[in-house]
């Protein structure tokens, strides 16, 4: 057994020999580095990582990781990853997916994996567009978006990843921005440590087909005022001057200024990512600019039993009390008779 304490990796150890083929300027490059950095800091032996993906630009990810990897078929990565993790709970299983892969064609597998709480770390690249098929709207595209398949604007309400995760009984949801490597790395590390399905939504830019879609909140000039990075146990303040904050006003979250209306930092909501009741987490995950800042960081991280552990425990329990220990026992169990 390798002593995990002694394992020292650098980011380079997780780079495969494959040439990275995403478009220059694509947000995926930054996600790749952040994940490689996070993995190098986890202290988990390299051979224990398995990266599973579906189809789409982001799903090429496993080829660029010097780990075990399986590039699957469209939408099915959650199911493949579930099989890997149930079979071998000792592996650190990561699913790389996009808004189309996870929420359209793979929506069913995605919600059921989350519901079962299988310990998989899902990184969902949300660029609100189909990139690999060259620019059609996705289930997260804003209503009205003009694309090749919606030349007069989409007529559909978009999914919000966080709302869907919480609706599917999700226990871990975080949001980050592709270019924010330090925030992303720290989130990936926490996602890996969390036991159960961890969903990390990455606001990712597609330079070709949906360029700048997240700029309104992620642009350097405005991001401090239009996003809030949530930290467990800390008050919810944000803004360039750190003087804006969130309070609970009746049934709704409200943006306030510290100092205005006698509001002090003590009045602000204090983030509790571990609270099992999803009410506030849901509201935080739903916040949209311009009414609210967009919540980044770990929004929800509730300890909860995982599916694959329960599978193992059930088998152990039953085996302890069963008289059937092998196939010969089974074959000869129940009604059998001898023909002389």
């Amino acid at each position, binding site marked *: 057994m390798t002593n995990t304490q002694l394992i020292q990796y650098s980011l380079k150890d997780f780079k495969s020999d494959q040439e990275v083929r995403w478009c220059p300027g694509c947000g995926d490059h930054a996600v790749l580095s952040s994940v490689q950095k996070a993995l190098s800091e986890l202290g988990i032996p390299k051979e224990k990582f398995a990266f599973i993906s579906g189809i789409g630009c982001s799903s090429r990810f*496993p080829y660029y990781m010097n780990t075990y990897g399986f590039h699957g078929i469209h939408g099915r990565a959650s199911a493949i990853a579930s099989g890997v993790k149930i079979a071998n709970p000792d592996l650190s299983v990561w699913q790389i997916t996009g808004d189309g892969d996870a929420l359209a064609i793979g929506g069913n597998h995605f919600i059921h994996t989350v519901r079962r709480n299988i310990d998989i770390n899902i990184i969902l690249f949300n660029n609100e567009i189909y990139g690999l098929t060259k620019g059609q709207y996705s289930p997260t595209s804003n209503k009205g978006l003009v694309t090749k398949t919606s030349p007069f604007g989409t007529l559909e309400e978009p999914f919000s990843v966080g709302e869907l995760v919480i609706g599917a009984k999700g226990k871990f949801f975080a949001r980050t921005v592709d270019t924010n490597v330090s925030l992303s790395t720290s989130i990936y590390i926490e996602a890996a440590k969390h036991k159960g399905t961890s969903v990390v939504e990455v606001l990712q830019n597609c330079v070709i087909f949906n360029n700048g879609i997240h700029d309104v909140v992620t642009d350097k000039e405005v991001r401090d005022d239009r996003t809030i990075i949530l930290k467990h146990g800390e008050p919810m303040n944000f803004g360039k001057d750190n003087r804006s904050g969130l309070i609970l006003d009746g049934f709704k979250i409200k943006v306030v200024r510290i100092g205005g209306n006698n509001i002090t930092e003590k009045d602000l909501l204090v983030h509790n990512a571990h609270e099992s009741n999803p009410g506030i987490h849901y509201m935080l995950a739903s916040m949209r600019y311009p009414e609210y800042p967009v919540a980044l960081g770990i929004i929800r991280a509730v300890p909860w039993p995982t599916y694959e552990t329960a599978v193992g425990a059930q*088998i152990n329990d039953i085996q302890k009390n069963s008289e059937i220990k092998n196939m010969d026992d089974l074959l000869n169990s129940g*009604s059998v008779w001898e023909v002389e």
Partner: protein
Amino acid sequence: MGKKSQVIQKDEVVIRFSGDSGDGMQLTGTLFSETAALYGNDLSTFPDYPAEIRAPQGTVGGVSGFTVHLGHSEINTPGDYADVLVAMNPAAVRANVMWIKEGSTIIYDKDSFTDKNIEKAGYLGDPIKEEKLENYNIIAAPISSMVKEALKDFGLDPKSVLRTKNMFALGMAYWMFNRKLDYTEDYCDKKFKNEPGIAKANTIALRAGYYYAETIETLTPVQISPAPIAKGRYRNINGNTATAWGFIAAAEKAGLKLFIGSYPITPATGILEELAARKDLGVKSLQAEDEIAGICTALGASFAGYLAVTTTSGPGLALKSEAIGLAVMAELPLVVVNVQRGGPSTGLPTKTEQADLLQALYGRSGECPVVVIAASTPSNCFHFAFEAARITLEHMTPVLLLTDGYLGNGSEPWRIPKMADLPEIKSPFAKIGKEPYLPYKRDDKRLTRFWAIPGTPGLEHRIGGLEKTIKGTVSYVPENHEYMVRIREEKVARVVEKVPNLKVYGKNSADLLVVGWGGVYGHLITAVRELQSEGHKVSLANFNYIKPLPQNVREVFSKFRKIIVCEINLGQFASYLRMNFQEFTYHQLNKIQGIPFTVKEIKDNCIKLLEGK
């Protein structure tokens, strides 16, 4: 238990229990067949039930039946026409009248032949008269009132009392066939361990039926002596359980763990249910959110080093097609079971058919070869599930195992194998060597790639659905694609190394070769043996290996004047044979009614062909 003056010796008999789907006919038939098996008869059974859990009471659509064919000699089919029909209501008469022998015995519950039930079954008056059955051996037993009388002091509610009607009928059948009641009584005691009152009521009804049959003196007991069966230890098994057990046995022989990812679908669900119950043997089972997740979780488990299977029926196989393609590209072991049913679409979910053969062979995008094998009896589902697992684990290519509703639900006595007698299974696992591991580097002989299990240091690699080079690098090079397509096809072809030669039942050279595949075996062998004993020069060849085909097919076919291919579809296997062996002429016998052939229709067609008509 009472005198039996006159006993008729018979070689075989077919008895059909039939009633409303709530009447407990499946249990009645099962108990009868287990009793017969313990006595030493050979037998074959087939349940036949509606797709609706409780179809409208008293209607023909709601009739549930269970047929038992037992004999003093080898029995290969559940029997086409019944010698004895037990009918719990008028609808059961209507549903079965076509399937009883001339002059057979019909035992029916007189009390359920009410005006209302007669009308529901579509009769105007007395069903026996309307069907012109007066000259049959008709036993109009007042079953409902007899159980009410027998249990009147028992304090049971009227519904529970009437629920014992099936035990009364079973008791009558036991008397008729000279059987003991102890097995059934033990069953009732165990089944209703916590409700001793119910157990007792069932036993009383059983005995009441037995004594009633003795008292009326219109039934003649029939003796069917034990069959000359090979020595050994036996049990009854149905095809779905046998399939499930074949996989567990294979996992044990391969030293691997077993994973099943499946979605419930009739008539395949029994395999998932059995494997879900086998936690004692460490089986991991997942009832997935859909058919696609079933196969994809299985494929994930295979990637992680398990023997992985997914089970389904026709429409579910269609949903799994894309993932089978992925398994072919990833070159991972995976068994896909298709328990065929009547199609297309939802079709006839509870009925049998063999119409998924071409889907199994070709129903995927691209050049996508898989090994296709088919079981041919309920009990040999064990052998072919084991074989499917062996092939997939040794050849690193997905295997499609075809059974059907008739095999899956049908049961027969089975000589229990010993694990020590089954072959070891060895997968080509990758080892850490001096050279770096290349995921698509192949074994020279079988052309299999080597299986590197996640968690093994030094073997990190990537696989997937995109075309790859030997190194696992994505490649669009035209020549590479053709090379890989051809090598995947050749890899499947080389599975033939351990495929046994096609067996001929009968002479190796004759006037007519009857050809079948999979589940038609039982009816074909029965028909061919009868034809042979009647002096016809007929032999049978029934295929279990479809792709690759056995090596001696051409040689076998060339020795016969005529060939007739019999299958429960419009001629899919015949087409496949024409494609592979064009020099022969293939006559066809096809039936697409959701039910197996009858021995008679096979014989009639063979004779016609022999007579040159």
